[in-house]
């Protein structure tokens, strides 16, 4: 079952990449296509942020991950590089967990 998910998801993601390189760039000139491709990831990434930070299966929870996320926001506002953002988030979450 997991293998099916791994292989089907990988094939699907590869075909999406290949489609972009192989398709006519004229598709991008269709406003509906362009907006959908640009806006769906923004909505989805934001949804993933809160789901990964504030939920546990079907429950809404507030734990050390929230502190880590807040620290990540501060790091991003200070224009820290990607790696530093992750280190700060992880470090603060571990610290809050240890203190709590």
């Amino acid at each position: 079952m997991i293998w099916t998910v791994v292989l089907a998801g990988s094939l699907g993601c590869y075909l999406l990449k290949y489609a972009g390189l192989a398709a006519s760039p004229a598709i991008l000139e269709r406003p509906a296509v362009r907006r959908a491709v640009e806006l769906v990831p923004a909505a989805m990434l934001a949804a993933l942020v809160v789901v990964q930070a504030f939920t546990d299966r079907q429950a809404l929870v507030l734990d050390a991950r929230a502190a880590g996320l807040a620290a990540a926001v501060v790091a991003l506002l200070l224009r820290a590089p990607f790696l530093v953002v992750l280190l700060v988030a992880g470090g603060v979450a571990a610290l809050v967990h240890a203190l709590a």
Partner: protein
Amino acid sequence: MSESAEGWRRRTTRDSLGVGLAVGLYGAAFGAAATASGLSVLQTCTLSLLMFTGASQFALVGVLGAGGAPVAAVASAMMLGARNTLYGLRLASPLGLRGLRRAVAAQAVIDETTAMALAAPNTAALRLAFTVTGSSLFVGWNLSTLAGALGSGLLGESAQVALDAVVPAAFLALVWPRLRHSSTDRAVAAGGALVALALTPVVPPGVQVILAAAAVGLGFGRWRR
């Protein structure tokens, strides 16, 4: 002239290699998160080799780890992977590849390679940035995935907590540039986050993310037309 050309070659190569190295921690976090979600080390490493697009991989193992349906896991990965199609459309003409070379290059059409390529000052630099970033990312991502997958069993409780916090922070860092530059993206992101939280208690794990993205992303696109 040749000196400045040498200059940008060196700069492009250095920056591109740097991006490949910086992704290491993210890859290790993925390896550990995937095995914690119930994937074997081989399945985890296969994902990094064949899927090779971080956000989709995290989304897929996140849905599986939360007990979500296989279809929801694949759909989440593909919805996030759809932005690579947009990148490909932008890169197709400057890369100018055909046949087998295009088929191989397609695997490297992701956030980081696109960002580095589109920041290059000319077409030759764009191709160099794409190639070097893609190669170093592929090596770094897969090695760090393996390290994370093998090392996750050795992690203590604090390290597990830290890792749990790294995942949402990584998604936030991915969406952050969009939030900084576009008020439309900010509205869409806020909507997506709220809808996902509201749906979490009432739909199976993973489905809330898909519904939030579809409703808000597509809905907002139509409304703005």
